[in-house]
C-alpha cells in the first residue's frame, strides 16, 4: 500500500502532497522535511529507494521535480517506480508535455488526476486511456456546467 505521495522540487519546495494513511499536520511537515533531506542529497546513480522508519520510499526525479511514494516494506519497489512513471505519463498527456509549472499552477488538476490513478493507496487503473477518458468527461462536464446551470449535465453524461 502507498502511504503517501509527495512531489518536491530540487529546492525542497512542496508541489503536491497526498496522504493515504492518517498523518497529523505536524507529522506531515516533519515527514516532508526528513524525506527531502534524505532524498535530495542522494547522488544520481544510487538506488531510487530509501529505507525510512521501517517503510520504503521510492522516488524518481523528472527534471527538477522529485516524485516520492512511501510504501510498505514488502511492496515491489520496481512496480512503484513504474506507477510513478505511469502517473507522469498521464500528466504529460493531459497537460501536453508537462513541466513543473503546470503542476505549480494547476495543482488541483494534478490532484484530480491522481485521484483517478490511485485510490486508498492502491493503483486503481492501469490503463492510461481509461484515466484520460474519465478526466476528459469530468472536465467537459465542468466546462459546460460553468456555462449553463448544472441541469444539462445529465444529458451529457448519457451522451458520453
Amino acid at each position, binding site marked *: 500500500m502507498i502511504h503517501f505521495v509527495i512531489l518536491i522540487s530540487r529546492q525542497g*519546495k*512542496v508541489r*503536491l*502532497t*497526498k496522504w493515504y494513511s*492518517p498523518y497529523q*499536520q505536524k507529522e*506531515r*511537515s516533519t515527514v*516532508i522535511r526528513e524525506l527531502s533531506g534524505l532524498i535530495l542529497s542522494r547522488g544520481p*546513480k*544510487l*538506488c*531510487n*529507494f*530509501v*529505507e*525510512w*522508519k*521501517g517503510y520504503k520510499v521510492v522516488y524518481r526525479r523528472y527534471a527538477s521535480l522529485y516524485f516520492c511514494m512511501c510504501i510498505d516494506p514488502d511492496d*515491489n*519497489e*520496481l*512496480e512503484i*517506480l*513504474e506507477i510513478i*512513471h*505511469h502517473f507522469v505519463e498521464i500528466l504529460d498527456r493531459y497537460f501536453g508535455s508537462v*513541466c513543473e509549472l*503546470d503542476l*505549480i*499552477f*494547476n*495543482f*488541483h488538476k494534478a*490532484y*484530480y488526476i491522481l*485521484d483517478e490513478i490511485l*485510490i*486508498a493507496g*492502491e493503483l*486503481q*487503473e*492501469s*490503463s*492510461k*486511456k*481509461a484515466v484520460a477518458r*474519465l478526466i476528459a*468527461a*469530468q472536465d467537459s*462536464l*465542468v466546462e459546460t*456546467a*460553468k456555462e449553463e*446551470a*448544472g441541469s444539462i*449535465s*445529465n444529458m451529457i*453524461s448519457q451522451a458520453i
Partner: protein
Amino acid sequence: MEQLKTIGRELAMGSQGGGWTGQSKEFLDLVKSIGEARSKAEEDRIILREIDSLRRRIAEPDVPRRRMKEYIIRLVYAEMLGHDASFGYIHAVKMTHDDSLSLKRTGYLAVTLFLSDDHDLIILIVNTIQKDLRSDNYLIVCTALTAACKLINEETIPAVLPQVVDLLAHPKEAVRKKAVMALHRFYQRSPASVSHLISYFRKRLCDNDPGVMGATLFPLFDLITADVNSYKDLVISFVSILKQVAERRLPKAYDYHQMPAPFIQIKLLKILALLGSGDKQASGHIYNVLGDIFRKCESSSNIGNAVLYECICCVSSIYPNAKVLDAAAESTSKFLKSDSHNLKYMGIDALGRLIKINPDIAEEHQLAVIDCLEDPDDTLKRKTFELLYKMTKSTNVEVIVDRMIDYMISINDNHYKTEIASRCVELAEQFAPSNQWFIQTMNKVFEHAGDLLNVRVAHNLMRLIAEGFGEDDEGADSQLRSSAVNSYLRILGEPKLPSLFLQVICWVLGEYGTADGKYSASYIIGKLCDVTEAHLCNDTVKAYSISAIMKICAFEITAGRNVEMLPECQSLIDELSASHSTDLQQRAYELQALLCLDSQAVESVMPLDASCEDIEFDGNLSFLNSFVQQSIEKGARPYIPESERSGTFSVSNYNSQYQHEASSHTLRFEAYELPKPSPTPATPQISVSTRTTDLVPVPETTYYYTENNQASKLPPVSDASSADHGIKLHLDGVQKKWGRPTYSSSSSSTSSEKKTNGVTRIDGVSSQSRGTLYDSKGQQSEVSAEKQKLAASLFGASAGKTEKKLASTQRAPKATTAIAERPGVTRAVSPEISKQKAASSPPPDLLDLGEPITTTTPTIDPFEQLEGLIGPTPGPSTLDNSVTTSEQKAPDLMTLYTDTPPSSSSSISSALGDIHSADKNSQMAKNVPSVKKGPNPQDSLQKDATARHVGVTPTGNNPNLFRDLLG
C-alpha cells in the same frame, strides 16, 4: 531567470485560456511569490498573510460560489504547504452540497485533503455522500466514491455500504471499479463489515472490464491474506487469468511499455504466492504459468524486471520446484550482475528469498554480495546486511556480526541503528561460538546503541548470563559469568555508558561479582558506588546498583564473613534513604535492615544464585479472605471492582481479554437507580453496604461462601435472577453459560445482614447491573484461570529443568527478592510470560509478604469455567458451493476480454443468482456489527436478538457478526 520562465509560462497559459480559467490574478500572484520565495521563513510569512486574508474574506456574507471555490483551492494550497487552514473546513464541507459538479468536485477534493477519517465534520458529509451515490450522473457517483474511500470510517460504513454494494452492478465500469476499491477500503477499516460480501468480489473477478477485474484483486488479496484456505478453489481461475494476461489477451490499452498489463500480473503473482505457500497441490498449477512468464519477460525494461522480481517472490513462497527455481536463480543473477543499483538491490532481496529454499544459490554470488556491501549507497548496503542476517550460520556469525556492528557505529539514523543492534543481539544469542565472544559482542552493542535497545534485550542478556546456554555444564556457565564480570569491571572505567548497559552491569556484578572469589566484596561494592556517583541523575541505575550492593552484602553475611561498610557506600545509603524516589528509599532501608539480620535469615531472604528460581505469588490474595470476611462482618463496606464503580457496560466485557481496552472509557447511558431510603435507622455504612452488595462479586469470598454455608435459599435466588435476565435480553444460548449459581451468591453472602437490617428487597437492582455482575464474574474467573495456566507452564518448565521446585515455606523470602528486583528484572520468567503477568496480575506481591498460606480457596476448576465462558462459538463459515462451481468457469470467462461470447456471461450470472439472494439475507444483518462500538450493550443485544428473529443464526452466513458482538 526562473522568474522570467514563470512569467513566460503564465503568459502562455493566459493565451491558452482553457488551462487556467477562473483563477484570479491575486491567486496567480500568490503562487508566483511562493515560487520566488528564497527561504522557508519568507514562504511562511506569505502564506500566513494569505491565511489571514482568507479567514476574513471567507466569512463574509454572500460570497459568490465561484469566488468561494477559489478560496477553497487557496486553502488547499495553504494546507499543502504545511499550514493550518482548519477555519475553512466547514466551507469545504458546505461546498460538497452544491449542485454544480464543478463546485462539488472542488468541495470533495478539499474535504478529502483536509479531513482525516476521524474528524468531527465527517458526520456532516456522510449524508451528502449518500445522496451523491444515488445520483444518476455517473461522474458525481465517481466523485462521491473517491471521497468515500478517504472519509468513511468504521462507524459510518453501514450508512453507505448498501449503496456502494448496489453500485457494483452499475453499467459504467469506472463506477464499478471505484465501488470495488471503496469496499476494499472498508474492509481495511473494519473487516467484519464487508466479510459477507465475498461472493460479490468473486463475481467481480469475472467482470467484462479488465480495470474492474484488476481492482477486485485488491480486496481479494486482503481476504486471502487473512484466510488462505477458503480461497484455494480460486487458484485455477487466477492461474488462467494470469496466463491470458501474459498471452496479451487484454485490450491494448492495458499494455505498459510493451508489457501486457504488468500491474495486474504483479498483483496476481502476489495472490498466487499466498495461495501456493506450503501447498504442493496448488503450487502444481502455478509452475507452468511462472515458467511462461520467466521466458516471455524481457529484462531490458524496468517494468519487465518488476514482473520478474514478483515471479521470484512467488517462486520462493510456493512449494519448491526445481525448474522454476532455476529460472528464478537465473533472473536473480542477472539482477545482481546488472549495473543498475536498483536491480542490484532487487537482486539482493531476491537472493535473500531464494536462499531460504536453497542456500547454495548464494555461493556463486559471493563477490557480488561483497561488492554491494562495500557500496557507498546506504540503501544497498542495508539491504545487503539484511541478506547477511538471513544467511548467518554458526560458521560465519563472527564476521557478519562484526561487520554489522562496525556499520552500526558509523550511522546516525536511530531507527536503523536500533534495528541492526537488535539483529546483532539476536544473531549473537543464536549462534555465538564462544562465551568470550558473546560477551564482547554484547558489550559493543550495548556500548554504542544501549539506549536505543528494547529493555527486553537487556533482560534477555541477564537471563542468559544467569541461566547459561542451556547446557548442563555448570563449569561453562560459571566461566561465562566470570568473563562477563571481568569485562564489565573493565568497561566501567569508560566515561559514558548507556543506562541500560549500566543496569545490566550492576545486576551481573550483584549476582556474580563475588561468585568466583576473584574479587573481594568491598572491591565490587566500591565499583558499584562509583557507578551511582557517575550517573547521579538516573534513578533506575541507582536502584539496580543499590540492589546489587544488597545482594553482595547478603552473600557475604551468608558466607559468615563480616561486612565492613565502606564510607562511600554508607554515604550512598544515607543519600538514598532521603531520596525523593520512594523506590530508592525502600531499597536503602531494606539494605539497612538486611545488615542487621543474622546469617540464616539473610540466606533465606537473599539466597545465593537464585535468580533462575520461580517466585510464587498468589494474585487472588486468597490469604486475606478471612480478614475481609471479618471486616465485612464488622460492617465494613465490601470492595467494589473498578469496572462496576464506573458503571461501564460494554459488550466486550463478555470476554475479559478485551476488557482493558474497551470498557474503560464508555459513558453510562442509563439513569442512576433511585436512592432507597433505608427503612431502619441502621448505621450509614451498613445501609450503603446493603445497597451495593448486589453489585459486588468479590470472588474469593464468594467461593468461600458457596462452599461453606451453602444455604438452602441460595439456588432459588440465582435461578430467579437468571431467568429474569433471560427474559430481558432474549439471549438463550449465551446466558445459560453465565448463569452459574455461584454468580449470584455474592448477594447471599450478605444475606444475613439483610435480614438484620430488615431490607428484603433485591429487586432494586436492575437487570443490567446483574448483567455486569455476570460479566465481571466471568472476567475474574477467566483471569484466574489464565494465571493458573501461566503458573502451570512456569512450574512445569522449571521443574523439568532445574528440579528446584519451591517449597511453600520459601515463598516469603522469595517475595522479598522479587521486590528488590522490581525495576523490571523478572527472574527466569520468559519475556512474554512476564509481560502477560504484568498485564493481568494486580500488584499484590507486596502484600504477599505477610502470610504464606496458599490455598484457603476451594478451587473451582478454572479450565472448566473457561470452557463455559467461551460459550457457543460460531461454526466455521460455510461458503456456498455454488460460488466454487461458478468460479471454475472463470477460465472461459476470461475470453470475454478478447472475443466476447455473450452466452457464457449470462450463464454465469444465472449461476450466481442464488448466491446473490443468499447474500441479501446476510446483508440485512450487516448493520449489527456496527453496533459493537456503541456504549449500550443492551441495545446491541436486542438488535442481535432481532437479527436472530429475522433468521440469521450464528452458524449461518455471517459468523463474524456474533464474534464481534460477543467480543
